[in-house]
């Protein structure tokens, strides 16, 4: 099967709606088809990968740890838009330190999060063959 460039665009905060969890599930399914997958976190989507999420007070499952497993599924390009963080009073330090292991480099852990500005994000989107928006 031909490999295509897939991008999942995440624009919603987690827990208030089902979009974030549904996106994550489709992302994991796409990994099984060995596609060239990228994730974009823009607007409120940046809240999906904040560190220290604790859902005990709202009675919902905390699925933030699943993002840490994406590297094991060869999903290692998580584009985060700088402007979206800034508008929300956040910095990269507020995000989980997501990594993937490079088997060609003695399984060294390398960062999966790629910080881009709005115009760079537009360029990444323009390169995609399939875009799925959540």
């Amino acid at each position, binding site marked *: 099967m031909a490999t295509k460039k897939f991008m999942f665009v995440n*624009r*919603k*905060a*987690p*827990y*208030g*709606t089902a979009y974030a969890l549904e996106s994550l599930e489709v992302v994991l399914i796409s990994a099984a088809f060995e596609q060239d997958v990228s994730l974009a976190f823009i*607007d*409120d989507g940046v*809240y999906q990968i*904040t*560190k*220290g*999420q*604790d*859902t*005990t*007070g*709202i009675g*919902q499952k*905390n699925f*933030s740890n699943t993002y840490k497993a994406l590297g094991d599924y060869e999903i290692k390009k998580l584009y985060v838009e700088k402007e979206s963080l800034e*508008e*929300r*009073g956040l910095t990269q330090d*507020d995000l989980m330190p997501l990594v993937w292991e490079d088997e060609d480099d003695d399984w060294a852990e390398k960062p999966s999060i790629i910080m881009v500005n709005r115009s760079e994000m537009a360029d990444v989107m323009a390169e995609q063959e399939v875009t799925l928006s959540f």
Partner: protein
Amino acid sequence: MAMLHIVNKSPFEKVSFRSCLNHVKVGDSVLMIEDAAVGALEGTSFSEKLKTAMGDVSVYVLGGDLVARGLSEDRMIDGIKAVDYAGFVDLTVENETTQSWL
């Protein structure tokens, strides 16, 4: 007639939070729940709008919704009070009426 205004949408995504603040009266209360909780943070593109409104209204946030999104209460705008579900119930009792800004 004090009113409790309940907001559940992110101020960065929908206009409902702004619309709520544009319609509150002195002495009303505003409670942020679900995705609206992200609006409680200091230093955002929305915080000045909320701080201006706080001269007239009391502002609360459901603490569980804040920490679920990885945001700690010590990063809130000064003067916002975090409440739990029991506090949510108290607010509905203390106010004569409630309005949900969906």
